[in-house]
């Protein structure tokens, strides 16, 4: 595993898939990360729908990433409502991408979100490691 690779653990990726550009950017970023081996995209609707097998699988993952489209945070709230904690939370609009009811997003916008997820995973891993070695 590369030092720059963020998928050193069992990472489960959840993405918003709502009716806006930012939602579809979230979804495309999760797809790209999955295909590039940086995690495993999983059915967010199955989990927030509280389907037992889906929730159980989500709880087994070492890290759970939620990519929300906007600051309504539907995905994070939905996951937490069924008892699934979120380890890394990325919000597309927090990255300076404006929400709109269109689907004309760019590859650069998807890349920005994918990069933010990797950064988030590195920070999370690092911080836990530092805590563990502090004493």
């Amino acid at each position, binding site marked *: 595993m*590369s030092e720059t690779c963020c*998928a050193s653990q069992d990472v489960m990726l959840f993405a918003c898939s709502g009716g806006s550009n930012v939602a579809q950017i979230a979804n495309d970023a999760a797809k790209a*990360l999955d295909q*590039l*081996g940086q995690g495993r995209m999983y059915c967010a609707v199955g989990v927030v729908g509280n389907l037992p097998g889906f929730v159980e699988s989500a709880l087994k993952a070492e890290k759970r990433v939620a990519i929300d489209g906007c600051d309504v945070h539907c995905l994070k709230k939905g996951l937490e409502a069924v008892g699934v904690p979120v380890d890394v939370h990325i919000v597309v609009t927090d990255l300076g991408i404006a929400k709109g009811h269109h689907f004309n997003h760019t590859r650069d916008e998807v890349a920005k979100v*994918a990069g933010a997820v*990797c950064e988030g995973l590195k920070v999370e891993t690092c911080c836990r490691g530092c805590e563990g070695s502090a004493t």
Partner: protein
Amino acid sequence: MQIQILGVGCAKCKALHANAEAAVKDLGLDASIEKVEDIQQIVKLGVMTTPALAVDGKVKVAGKVASVDEIKKLLA
């Protein structure tokens, strides 16, 4: 000429890098070979499977380790 090897540092990416170096050497090209391990850069180039090889910003090979001969054909 700028050659980029895209991937997160797996064994296949290293093999593709080595093949690209051999191809450049065999052809006597004046080319730089850059490793791109940053996910944001990889996604920007539209690559969904690695390893991949891009020449002057255009993806020529994705999802496989191209042989030295295959790379030479791409660069010639």
